[in-house]
């Protein structure tokens, strides 16, 4: 069978899909993470906390599918990235996984025993389950922008030479992590002001004001740092966009300001960082005007802008290597085969609409606010 789509085009499509899935994850599961990270602060009494938990209760598991889908897409479409990232960020991803495992247990165990200490313990476990993944995903993005210490040998085996977790927690990485925490907690707070009422909604709304301003400041700081202090990567010489996925066939150099080069070449790409700067402020304004539905859309656009900024700044790089720049993984030499990309494209075109449809259906069925009365009336069956 000859494949009707060019290899180059397929790689570009899968780069776009990678962005769609990451942004989908940030928007959909982002508010679950944000709500969990805010839980001990926006909700003080047991009933308040159950209101917050049941606001995400019917949807968080479905939303987590975006993470699995994203991981699966990286595994199938960008296997070299998957291998390098999962080995390189090994301990960090272990922490993410452990934190994410606390989430279902937190949800399911929490209300099984009526004991304040027991419930407080799980509330803090849920806090960790929201905070750690938010932070680590941001830290990982920051480290991607800085370059990751790996090399590739002649057998295409990847050797990660970094010293582990603490190396990832460098100042720029931490700043990127804070951007992520700020934007996801803000997103979670917007969701809570949409789905709850009473004191939880009030506290969530006032957090949105603080969180969205923090997001803009941190994001702008990271941008300035990126422009002035972080060396980007540039491919020098030829690279065959439809060539074999062997990252050792090109030359790459590090250059100050290289991560901004794309914006000079394609000014329309500036839309991403501008959206990331403007949308959080619009979110805060809409919350002030008591329009949480529109605020949720604005907040989603903010996440879109911020995540897309990382993607377009680095294009065509996906995972640059700081110790062997020429071994950097790019869109053109880290994908799976043309046939794999094509077959996956077809299945994605079939299944993504189905996922969107059932997700939409669930949100429709579960529309409306969660109230303290509902919790008390269904105390044994709700989270």
């Amino acid at each position, binding site marked *: 069978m000859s494949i009707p789509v060019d290899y180059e085009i397929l790689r570009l499509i899968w780069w776009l899909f990678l962005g769609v899935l990451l942004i989908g994850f940030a928007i959909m599961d982002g508010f679950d993470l944000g709500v969990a990270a805010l839980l001990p602060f926006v909700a003080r009494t047991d009933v308040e906390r159950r209101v917050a938990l049941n606001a995400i209760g019917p949807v968080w598991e479905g939303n987590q599918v975006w993470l699995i889908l994203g991981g699966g897409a990286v595994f199938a479409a960008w296997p070299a990235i998957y*291998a390098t990232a*999962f*080995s390189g960020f*090994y*301990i960090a991803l*272990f922490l993410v996984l*452990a934190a994410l*495992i606390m989430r279902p*247990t937190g949800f399911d*165990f929490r209300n*099984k*025993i009526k004991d304040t200490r027991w419930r407080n313990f799980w509330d803090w476990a849920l806090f960790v389950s929201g905070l750690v993944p938010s932070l680590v995903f941001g830290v990982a993005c920051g480290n991607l922008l800085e370059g990751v210490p790996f090399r590739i040998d002649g*057998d295409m*085996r*990847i*050797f*990660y030479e970094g010293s*582990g977790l603490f190396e990832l927690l460098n100042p720029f990485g931490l700043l990127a992590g804070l951007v992520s925490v700020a934007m996801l907690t803000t997103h979670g707070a917007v969701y809570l002001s949409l789905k709850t009422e009473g004191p939880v909604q009030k506290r969530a709304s006032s957090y949105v004001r603080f969180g969205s301003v923090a997001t803009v400041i941190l994001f702008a700081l990271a941008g300035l740092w990126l422009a002035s202090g972080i060396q980007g990567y540039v491919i020098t010489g030829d690279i065959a966009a439809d*060539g074999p996925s*062997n990252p050792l066939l090109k030359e790459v150099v590090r250059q100050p300001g290289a991560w901004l080069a794309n914006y000079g070449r394609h000014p329309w790409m500036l839309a991403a960082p501008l959206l990331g700067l403007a949308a959080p402020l619009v979110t805060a304004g809409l919350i002030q005007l008591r329009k949480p539905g529109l605020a949720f859309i604005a907040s989603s656009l903010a996440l879109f802008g911020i995540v897309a900024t990382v993607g377009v700044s680095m294009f065509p790089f996906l995972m640059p290597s700081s110790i062997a720049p020429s071994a950097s993984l790019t869109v053109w030499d880290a994908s799976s085969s043309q046939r794999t990309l094509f077959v996956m494209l077809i299945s994605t075109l079939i299944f993504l609409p189905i996922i969107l449809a059932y997700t939409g259906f669930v949100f429709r069925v579960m529309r409306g606010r969660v109230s303290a009365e509902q919790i008390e*009336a*269904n*105390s*044994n*069956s709700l989270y």
Partner: protein
Amino acid sequence: MAGLASSKETYFQGVQFTAKRSIMVASAFGLAASLSAVVLGDESGYSVSEHQKMKLAAIEAMWDSEPAPAAFTLFALPDAQTGKNRFEVKIPWLLGLIATRSVDTPLPGINDLVVKAEGRIRNGLIAYDALDHLRQNRNDAEARATLASHAEDLGHALLLKRYVEDPRTADDATIAKAAHDTVPGVAPLFWTFRLMAVLGFAFILLMATVFWKACRRDFSSRWLLKVCLWSLPLPWLACEVGWFVAEFGRQPWSIDGVLPTFLASSSLASGQVLFTLAGFVLFYSSLAVVDVLLMRKYVLMGPVKALGLNNHAAVVAPAE
């Protein structure tokens, strides 16, 4: 489910109704599931004989090729040193029927497969050399053609990387050693597979008995309830040994004939892997303890109390 329901019924006569229903549902599903496991197992047996001949030979402790139709070894004491079984009990024809669905296909034994592997390693070296040329010059048409015609055996050449940096420099003794590496541990495979199969048939027997009695509304047999209760961990055990057969039987390959395990693993330091392994064991064990304690609490509570007063009516007077 049958196990849990049995325990409830054994110890708490008060909620017999729920328990009986659970047993009926569980035995029907259990019977269907254990029967379908046989169908699936038969299917995998057939596909293993086609794609992973060495795994099949090792599971059956079949050192020498079996003339068609091959006999099934019921019991054996495999000896890897001599490449023979010290003692064996065989059922004629059976393996040939299961693995090849025919009476005229012979099955290759371990010793013959090793000889074959040696040939494939030598063939793979030609592919390895061609690949090297192609990497240096993408347009080398001759190397491309050579690679294409020998690509099937490229993975076998990679087995030599365990001993030498460049497989092309390997001597005859090293090649023979690499060929011998293609044999997984025979005795562990032989026995774990048999344990899995025995458990599989035991589940059918148990579930059929429970189902038969449940259909006749007979829940009185205490020994059967006890057997159900104590069978709780057995499906888990069957899964584990099945997993062992699948993965250990694949060695030394990650992808049979393509990618050796020692090349497929990541370059992580063992300390890191140990850390996460210990972390997961500790983490999951503590969650398991909490889980079991909660389950115990709710079992003791019974369905009425556990669901709350709102649902009381639904439990006591279920709609028929």
